[in-house]
């Protein structure tokens, strides 16, 4: 007798369990408060460490903008990477929630990129004497912002959610070429923006008293992103459910004989 029960997918079973929106919502409902608490704690520690860090001998107190600016730009790039992985999930594995993930992450990524651009500009004025310069790093981050806004516009332009999935995924993957350009722009071109001091092959070039607040804030921004991302995915699932309920209510109304409609 052959065994007709379905074999479980082994390790990846949890990945496909999550494809069920109700199960995802169940997990999100307890995971979001946990992540939010961790985020608040990490933000508290990071901000305290950041503001108690000594003033830089060259930059003075403005060095503390680094603790807000640098994690914001790291998070903006990480968000795009999350969107690209979700795009692969849509195109390659047809995961139902991958499309929800892209839609939810795009406004968040745009917000973090905007934050990075604004705080960087505020830092640049006392540092370099200019609000803006068209060097490789700043220009490519601005391009990233444009890509995010284009993706948001595309997501809003197509009314039927599942029809937009393929288009969003393709454009997200096409735009991913910008991420290595941003990362290596300070190595490949002569830029005003400083070169990499943390994620290099050698040891980070920063002193511990600045490095630890920076890494704490980076971790805080990461948990913040995932908290907001899960919340946005939950909202998107609810939005789609409301949409289907509206459409089925309209259908029911239409199908009733004219005299019985109220």
């Amino acid at each position: 007798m052959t065994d007709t029960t379905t074999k479980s997918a082994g390790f990846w079973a949890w990945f496909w369990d999550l494809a069920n929106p109700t199960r995802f919502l169940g997990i999100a409902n307890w995971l979001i408060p946990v992540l939010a608490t961790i985020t608040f704690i990490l933000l508290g520690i990071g901000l305290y460490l950041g503001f108690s860090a000594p003033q830089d001998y060259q930059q003075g107190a403005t060095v503390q903008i680094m603790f807000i600016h640098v994690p914001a730009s790291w998070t903006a790039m990480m968000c795009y990477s999350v969107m690209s992985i979700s795009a692969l999930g849509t195109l390659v594995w047809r995961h139902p929630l991958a499309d929800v993930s892209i839609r939810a992450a795009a406004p968040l990524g745009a917000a973090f990129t905007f934050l990075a651009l604004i705080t960087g500009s505020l830092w640049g004025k006392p540092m370099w004497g200019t609000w803006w310069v068209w060097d490789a790093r700043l220009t490519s981050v601005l391009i990233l912002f444009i890509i995010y806004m284009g993706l948001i516009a595309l997501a809003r332009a197509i009314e039927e959610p599942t029809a937009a999935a393929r288009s969003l995924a393709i454009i997200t993957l096409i735009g991913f070429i910008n991420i290595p350009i941003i990362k290596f722009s300070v190595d490949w071109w002569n830029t005003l923006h400083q070169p990499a001091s943390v994620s290099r092959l050698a040891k980070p070039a920063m002193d511990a008293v600045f490095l630890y607040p920076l890494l704490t804030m980076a971790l805080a921004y990461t948990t913040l992103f995932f908290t907001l991302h899960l919340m946005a995915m939950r909202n998107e699932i609810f939005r789609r459910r409301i949409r289907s309920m509206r459409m089925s209510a309209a259908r029911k109304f239409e199908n009733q004989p004219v005299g019985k409609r109220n």
Partner: protein
Amino acid sequence: MISLLLRDMKLAFRVGGGALTGILFFLVVVTIVPFAVGPDLNLLSKIGPAILWIAALLASLLGLDRLFQQDREDGSLDVIIIQPRSITAIVFIKCLSHWLANGLPLIIATPIFGLFMNMEPLAIGAVLVTLLIGTPAITFIGAVGAAVTVSLPRGGLLLAVLILPLVIPVLIFGVSASYGAIQDPAPFTSPFLILCALTLFFSVLGPITAGWMLSQSTD
């Protein structure tokens, strides 16, 4: 294939085609520039290659939504897609015909507009050659955007926004090669060869991606 090419070109030059509107837009942009920056001929000749490239880029971007939308409106896009031929080849031919109808007139008009910008013959020639190589790249990249936005109202604007990040390198190397031909220390060959490489690269990637998108879309 040839019949598809000829059909598209005939359609483009007919009344509703809009191929010649691209040249008009090119002319309008080039005309506006001296109003904005002043009629100083030296300044105009210095920024001439850049302005010509920007105007050609904008004119190309605005014409791209015609790539698939007209066919979709009268239903012939579906007929074209279900052909037994490879969809990549079909999209390639459509891009080629689109460039011949929209891009080539821009290039033919470039020398006249170069004279408007008081450019020397060598500069005009450099812009001509770089536009000749670079505008097909814009069309091939635009095919992907056109395939994504084919069923959207006002898809043309969204298309321009979506493909802008990919079109920027074409603009950078096109202008860089143009200036390299007229300014002594700047190189011409390297940016020009990179421009050729971009066109060849997108001539493969564009039709494959656009063809796949079209065959997946249910609209």
